[in-house]
């Protein structure tokens, strides 16, 4: 016995340039269900939901709400119809308080603000929906999990009947994620419908009622969660491709110590201390993973090791030599390479072409310049070698890299960073946003580097990836290293507890 169909999307198509982000997609949403939208990165999940939320307009296709044709013109219009979305990047104004943020989205018309009354209203809502959060707190003071609650509360206060959440568990610890899905289930039981975008099969199978799988902008499969198996989902998500299986081999115990960090403290962009008294030793030939929810100090750690951030106190030693005070250039020549999380804002220059990006760090080397004049031919050859060796599809050597696909950008970045056999590779979220094929390729390269004897500091928020790749796992929470565990002697539960700051 199925509930009424609340919403139907028919033949939705959306193109960006030449690519079809959504290609004739049909989707049906019932009342009171949790509907999961599964698919790898770039499958078109977010695009489809952004259409529903009024951010994009479809090129063709229809949307029916309660059987009636609607054309969703804007986010506000979507809200009027009863559709609200929690984006992956939260849409909160960090300088305003929780109450002010919720109030803003409520579309009220009062002119003068009565702060006390406003906070009281929001506190009532917070209790009613079971979303505990302090209405007077400023957004920037909240943890990511609390911010997510504010986002959900915004939708509920606007009386949305359909809640869309884009990768809601990505920023949470396993325990927090479980809690969040419990809240979502309660809402579904009260008659709301929830769409959850995800790329995690287990999570979807455990929590959803219905699963729709997208692949390459098309619907690949659709099923009730009860009928889903890992096999079936994998086939739908990946298709007929055979994947290069990433096999991790146990590293030899007791590789030589490479990098030692002692009592490291460093600041963030606001000048506040973001790393507290961090001490750890990394060895040659191992993958050391850093786990933690977003904003636990990962960025600061990576940038401090790369030399981009000043050390407030503490000591960093590489190969037994202190490098605490060395600058970025010196660290590059000492063999520290860095695959940063912002591929296009830091690792590569989007507006420059492949050749220029290929020598972004090495342009001063005698191979590429003499007396301050660039050797253009040598640079071109270097770039061509990368293209050949790593099978980079670039659409022309003169094209800005910003126009290449994410996978090819990352391949170029990784190729450049492992060139010259670095001894330490800092890899921050190296496969984020890549499709499964490209991600497998990058992981294979990293494992190869480990075999060669390099040490890889792998920063990730995906526990699956960490457990697949790492030899040891360090957990960051609030800028502190909560503990270090051997892979194989720990589990999701323990790492999750460490991520939330519980001492174990």
């Amino acid at each position, binding site marked *: 016995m199925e509930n009424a169909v609340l919403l139907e999307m028919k033949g939705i198509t959306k193109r960006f340039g030449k690519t079809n982000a959504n290609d004739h997609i049909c989707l049906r949403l019932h009342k009171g269900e949790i509907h999961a939208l599964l698919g790898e990165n770039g499958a078109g999940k977010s695009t489809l939901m952004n259409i529903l*939320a009024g*951010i*994009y307009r479809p090129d063709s296709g229809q949307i029916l709400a309660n059987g009636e044709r609607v054309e969703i013109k*804007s*986010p*506000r*219009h979507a*809200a*009027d119809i009863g559709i609200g*979305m929690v*984006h992956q990047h939260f*849409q*909160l*104004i*960090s*300088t*305003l308080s929780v109450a*002010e*943020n919720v*109030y*803003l*989205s409520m*579309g*009220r*018309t*009062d*002119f*003068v*603000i009565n702060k006390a009354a406003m906070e009281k209203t929001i506190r009532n809502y917070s209790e009613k929906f079971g979303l505990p959060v302090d209405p007077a707190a400023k957004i920037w003071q909240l943890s990511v999990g609390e911010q997510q609650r504010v986002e959900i509360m*915004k939708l509920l206060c606007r009386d949305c009947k359909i809640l869309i959440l884009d990768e809601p568990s990505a920023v949470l610890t396993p325990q927090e994620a479980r809690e969040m899905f419990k809240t979502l289930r309660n809402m579904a039981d009260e008659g709301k419908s929830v769409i959850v975008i995800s790329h995690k099969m287990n999570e979807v199978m455990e929590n959803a009622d219905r699963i729709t799988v997208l692949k390459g902008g098309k619907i690949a499969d659709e099923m009730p969660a009860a009928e889903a198996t890992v096999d079936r989902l994998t086939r739908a998500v990946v298709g007929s491709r055979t994947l290069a299986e990433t096999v991790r081999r146990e590293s030899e115990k007791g590789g030589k110590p490479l990098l030692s960090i002692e009592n490291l403290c460093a600041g963030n962009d*606001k*000048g506040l201390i973001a790393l507290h008294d961090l001490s750890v030793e990394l060895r040659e030939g191992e993958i050391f993973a850093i786990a933690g929810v977003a904003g636990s100090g990962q960025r600061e750690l990576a940038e401090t090791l790369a030399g981009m951030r000043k050390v407030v106190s503490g000591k960093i030693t590489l190969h037994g030599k202190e490098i605490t005070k060395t600058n970025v250039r010196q660290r590059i020549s000492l063999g520290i390479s860095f695959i940063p999380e912002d591929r296009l804002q830091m690792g590569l220059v989007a507006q420059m072409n492949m050749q220029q990006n290929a020598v972004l760090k090495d342009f001063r080397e005698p191979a590429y310049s003499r007396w301050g004049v660039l050797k253009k031919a040598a640079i071109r050859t270097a770039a061509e070698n990368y293209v050949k060796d790593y099978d980079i599809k670039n659409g022309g050597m003169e094209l800005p890299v910003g126009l290449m696909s994410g996978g090819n950008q990352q391949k170029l970045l990784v190729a450049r960073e492992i060139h010259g056999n670095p001894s330490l590779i800092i890899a921050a979220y190296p496969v984020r946003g890549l499709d499964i094929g490209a991600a497998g390729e990058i992981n294979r390269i990293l494992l190869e580097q480990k075999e060669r004897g390099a040490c890889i500091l792998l920063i990730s928020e995906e526990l699956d990836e960490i457990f697949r790749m790492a030899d040891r796992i360090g957990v960051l929470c609030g800028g502190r290293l909560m503990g270090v565990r051997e892979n194989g002697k720990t589990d999701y539960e323990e790492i999750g507890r460490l991520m939330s700051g519980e001492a174990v």
Partner: protein
Amino acid sequence: MTALITSVCAAAIVYAVSVLYAAVGEIFSQRAGIMNLGVEGVMLMGAVSGFLTAYYTNSKMLALLAAIVTGALLGLIYAFLTVTLQADQTVCGMAFLTFGSGLSGFIGKNVTGIASPVKFDKIALPLLSQIPFIGDVLFHQNLLVYLMYLIIPLSMFYIYRTRPGMILRSLGENPAALDTAGINVFALRYAYVIFGCSMIAVSGVCISLAYTNFWNEGMTGGKGWIAFSLVAFSEWNPTKAALGALLFGGISIVGMNMQIYLPGVPSQVYSALPYLATVAAFILSTGSFRKKHTEEPAALCCSYDRESR
């Protein structure tokens, strides 16, 4: 001596008000996320349009209205360039500087150096102007000064105590969030840029019809830039802007008066005082040796494009 102090203080207020309209306008514009570097150009256009209207119609109210309309039109163009066409705001500001100073010189050529028949004269407010010293300084001023006495508290109330003010504060902070909340980011940015430019144009009227009653090419002499740097100096807060403007006014007026007492010092040194003060204030308020303003709109200078987020 007291007479001198009174007149210096009164003159400092007139000077302050002539940059304050522009500063407050720019505060609204920047709070909405749009930086207008072309303050000087818009101010000149306001000064010349006000002056021409006063010259030909003998009405200062019409002059004020003409300046406001001119400012609004310029604001409309500016908003079109920066909000709709998403052009670089620094470049647009420079274009407005060139455009405003060129066009104002062109259309004002025929009235250069001729006195306007009307100007905003000083009006003594009944009773209040009788208070010794304070009365002479604060309540023996022109209409535009009195209006500013109202604008400062009103704008403070609007920005910090009302719902539209809350939206304004968010507009420069995270426009995408407002858009999802169903607020029309584009329309609001247009509105605040237009309002800002109108206010800047009124500053021009202060200079051409209250401070003096003449028009001269480039007569604002950098006051637009002073107003612009006041914005960061005041941390986007109208009250602090008023205090800052008084400081600048004081420095300039004292400088002018010093000339009489210390004739040995070249007059150019006194003329340079406001510029030096502006440079100093700008360095002190924006240098990275101090903590980043929490009030600085995070999305300042970023054009908002719904499809590319």
